[in-house]
């Protein structure tokens, strides 16, 4: 009695990736195990910690709470997709390095996704807005302070770059 397999085609970081999955394969498991994109992490599998955050059609979602079949035909962005095509770090990624906005790195991909989505929608966030944007991403290493500083730095640098 083996499980049915469903064909899927998902745009991941600009490249359409296809496969066959069981219905119960979560989006995060599909990304990690089937697509070898291990940058997205699992912390709780019940929708609280945010380590699994990816962008679905540009908006951050918890990929542990979606099945891969549900993402069929949609556009997913993972942390691997934030790096520029030539391998250079994005301003946001580089700002995390500059401000030491990470330690063990486990929550970092989810934080970057949440932060990137914030800056895409709100290029001049206040500290409160930054904290609200990452409110669904738990971190146990940093106490959030340097993460908030990193995002604020990124906003400042992006504003400078686009002026």
């Amino acid at each position: 009695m083996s499980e049915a397999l469903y064909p899927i085609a998902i745009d991941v970081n600009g490249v359409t990736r296809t496969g066959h999955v069981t219905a119960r394969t979560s989006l995060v498991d599909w990304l990690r195990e089937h697509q070898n994109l291990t940058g997205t992490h699992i912390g709780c599998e019940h929708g609280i910690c945010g380590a699994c955050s990816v962008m679905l059609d540009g908006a951050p979602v918890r990929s542990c709470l979606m099945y891969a079949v549900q993402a069929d035909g949609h556009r997913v962005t993972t942390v691997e997709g934030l790096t520029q095509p030539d391998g250079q770090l994005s301003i946001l990624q580089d700002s995390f390095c500059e401000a030491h906005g990470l330690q063990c790195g486990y929550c970092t991909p989810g934080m970057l996704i949440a932060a990137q989505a914030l800056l895409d929608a709100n290029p001049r966030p206040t500290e409160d807005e930054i904290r609200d944007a990452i409110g669904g991403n738990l971190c146990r290493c940093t106490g959030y302070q340097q993460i908030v500083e990193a995002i604020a730095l990124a906003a400042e640098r992006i504003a400078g770059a686009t002026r």
Partner: protein
Amino acid sequence: MKSPPFEYARAASVEEACALLSQHGDDAKVIAGGQSLVPMMAFRLLRPAWLIDINEIAALKFVAPQADAVRMGACTRQCDIQRDDALAASVPLLRQALAHVGHVQTRNRGTAGGSLVHADPSAELPLVAQILEARMTLRTKSGTRTLAAADFFEDAMTTSVAHDECLTDIAWPVWRDRKTGSAFTEISRRHGDFAIVAAAAQVAVDDDGTCTRAAFGVGGVAPIPTAFPALAQRLVGTHLEKETLREVAHDAAATLEPGTDTHASADYRRHLAGVLITRVLQSAYDDARSVR
């Protein structure tokens, strides 16, 4: 915490969703945002043989103002509701409630209908539905019916939605009184958590500040969110004076028999209910008075 096995169908239309629900009956569950459903599957507390995905049905994602209400598709995303300024003007409690719902990621997938059907006793949207007496339209293969909120919510995590029914839209009543104000507040352990106690109120006043209409309720204190239409009537004709408010809040709290859990005792919940009712009524009243 991998989900138990199930089969998946992506409905392209409401008709298809209803046909599938009719076909699979008890064995099927609708999946919308999945923010409440999928954790239950991860904990293996739910094991539907079929998940019917309604996320791709465009006909379920809309916000349509009407004469006395705003009709909203069941799959309208919470983030879209939050961002909708026209909606914030006509049904202000929605934006106010959603500020307390989960986090960005939750609201990017969560839907209006999903939260209502999940019917968590502390959830914010069911509380708003009760206070405003929202109307839920359910559809089956054979027809539709519309339920008032009070008939929709039956018990904790339980609604009167039948196994072969799909919630298609919600009508949120709009108060046409010019000077209408509203407020939503809750106490939770952390931001975005389910409320220990939530309270919401909507008040309309005339030009000299006399209350002409009121509605309020609390969540987290009973199996279903509790509105107090009779007590709200006592506010009509008053200026929501301190003593009036105190009595109404006290009488409302006195009717409650909340539960006890890790986070709060029954006594604490009852106490919070009284405090928060007073606060939201005062806030809603002040908000109404401030309308030009």
